[in-house]
């Protein structure tokens, strides 16, 4: 029987990445469309028990590999070697991983080690007689493509927010396994972990993003952006102009050389909507822009554009949101 595997990505604290719960949910629907393929979660890490238990809420079976070296070494290449050995032993058809930095590092090394192809950055996935068909948004959202793996086998990386995570009706079993083989790739030690000052909420899988651009005017201006994000329960994003000016860290940048996001709401404050920014956020469900220039490019693709000063309009929105929540 065809097998679909889900890589359970672990955060530094050993918890399961939210993205993996989405990927696992997607794997179950793909299995349903693939003649009842078996879904198996794989968790590989120094202390995998917690992550494995969490993943087992979403899939019928989880295989767990304890790999002590990931605790103080860059994980991607190590996990890829263990996973490649398991694939060699058990021969699943499809391996699904998240399309974030960890999943990409893993997928790249795994593909090289197994020779299996990669469908990267799927925004949807469905079964077909010829194997899974992945949907992609390419060329900055100008085109939607559907792609298949030759022979119906390979690796697929999945973008955040492709589906809403839903636990299975009953939790799955957990089985400890030990793949054969040595780690032959050079391991890269982590010699220190640095917590960035005031690390902001992650934009990767945020449901709501309030983003600021050059129009925000300075680091203090981002105070209003953060207040709006807090009032809406969202995260703070930014354009490259704001990042290059040093007003906000690069981790919050959205666009071609920043992150690609797909929130329910994107509130753009003082952002012109340059193509390199647009490619990172145009698939947001609702886009609202505040810009004093009615001809800014963002007015061509936002659902609503408020023509006005972002401080005045932003403060008015904030006041009304606070009034509502009492």
């Amino acid at each position, binding site marked *: 029987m065809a097998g679909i595997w889900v890589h359970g990505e672990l955060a530094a604290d050993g918890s399961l990445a939210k993205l993996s719960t989405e990927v696992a949910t997607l794997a179950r629907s793909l299995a349903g469309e693939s003649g009842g393929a078996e879904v198996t979660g794989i968790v590989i890490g120094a202390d995998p028990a917690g992550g494995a238990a969490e993943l087992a809420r979403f899939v019928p079976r989880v295989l767990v590999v304890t790999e002590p070296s990931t605790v103080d070494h860059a994980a991607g290449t190590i996990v890829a070697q263990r996973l490649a050995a398991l694939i060699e032993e058990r021969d699943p058809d499809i391996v699904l991983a998240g399309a974030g930095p960890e999943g990409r590092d893993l997928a790249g090394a795994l593909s090289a080690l197994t020779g299996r192809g990669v469908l990267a950055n799927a925004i949807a996935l469905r079964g077909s007689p010829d194997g899974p068909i992945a949907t992609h948004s390419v060329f900055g959202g100008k085109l939607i493509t559907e792609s298949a793996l030759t022979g119906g086998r390979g690796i697929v990386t999945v973008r955040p927010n492709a589906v809403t995570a839903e636990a299975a009706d009953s939790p799955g079993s957990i089985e400890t396994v030990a793949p054969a083989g040595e780690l032959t790739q050079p391991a890269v*030690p982590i010699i220190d972990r640095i917590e960035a000052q005031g690390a902001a909420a992650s934009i990767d899988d945020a449901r709501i993003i309030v983003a600021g651009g050059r129009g925000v005017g300075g680091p203090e201006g981002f105070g209003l952006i953060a207040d709006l994000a807090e009032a809406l329960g969202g995260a703070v994003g930014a354009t490259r102009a704001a990042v290059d000016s040093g007003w906000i860290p690069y981790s919050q940048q959205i666009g071609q050389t920043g992150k690609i996001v797909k929130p329910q709401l994107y509130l753009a404050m003082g952002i012109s909507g340059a193509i390199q920014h647009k490619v990172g956020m145009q698939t947001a469900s609702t886009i609202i822009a505040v810009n004093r220039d009615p001809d800014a490019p963002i007015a061509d693709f936002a659902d609503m554009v408020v023509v*006005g000063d972002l401080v005045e309009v932003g403060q008015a929105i904030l006041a009304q949101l606070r009034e509502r929540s009492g």
Partner: protein
Amino acid sequence: MRIVVLTKPVPDPASGGERLGADGRLDRTNSPAVVNGNDEYVLEKALKLVEAAGEGEVILLTMAPATAPETMRKALAMGATRGVLVTDPPIGGSCTVATTRILAAALKTLEFDLVLAGVDTSDGGAGVVAPGVAALAGLPYLSYAASIEPDAAAGKVRVNRITPSGYDVLEAPMPALISGTQALGEPRYPSLKGIMAARNKEITTLTLADLGIDAGTVGTAGATTKVVDSRAPEPRAATRVVREEPDEAARQVVALLAERRLI
């Protein structure tokens, strides 16, 4: 310090002209090619590191169609020393597996302390080639770099890898392969002198035969993935323009948020 930079020519995302041909492959005739954005950041870092070392070279390694030297000259104009281009008609239509194999084989023909790559490309955006090349070449792989600090005397390199909450400081012996981001710093503009000098810089060409790779295993023939369909995205709804005073404008924003159950 000798640094190889993996650079890919991509259709200019700002041109708006990217499209697929009838065969489901990128139609390169409809948009000008530029050096991939993330590759420019790592190239800039490579140039700075060699400048700081006071000796060495920056070698571009590109796998692309025969027209690539046009784009590679832009990177040479920024200051790269020379280019190596892997080009051969059967390479057309290569998937990431073939690209990874070809680049890893080409690296074997070069001597270097570091290999730098962008974290992803603006056209494919897979973000898998750099880790794949490192795995095939057996090089330590340090990814998502916000800083790169080689210590030539100790033969080691230190990288700050971007994490959700800050940085992991990674350290590896050289040679190593590092993927980098915009956080490495703004790329320089080529000077007039740089542009002139680039015309005479060497670009060596390698074929599949030079690398000992069977043409049937790469390109369209060996592709592990294929595009089966493409369509225009659903058009977005018309934009509602609000020109009222701040309080009234805010009321309309909040009403839309409530209507869409966002608050």
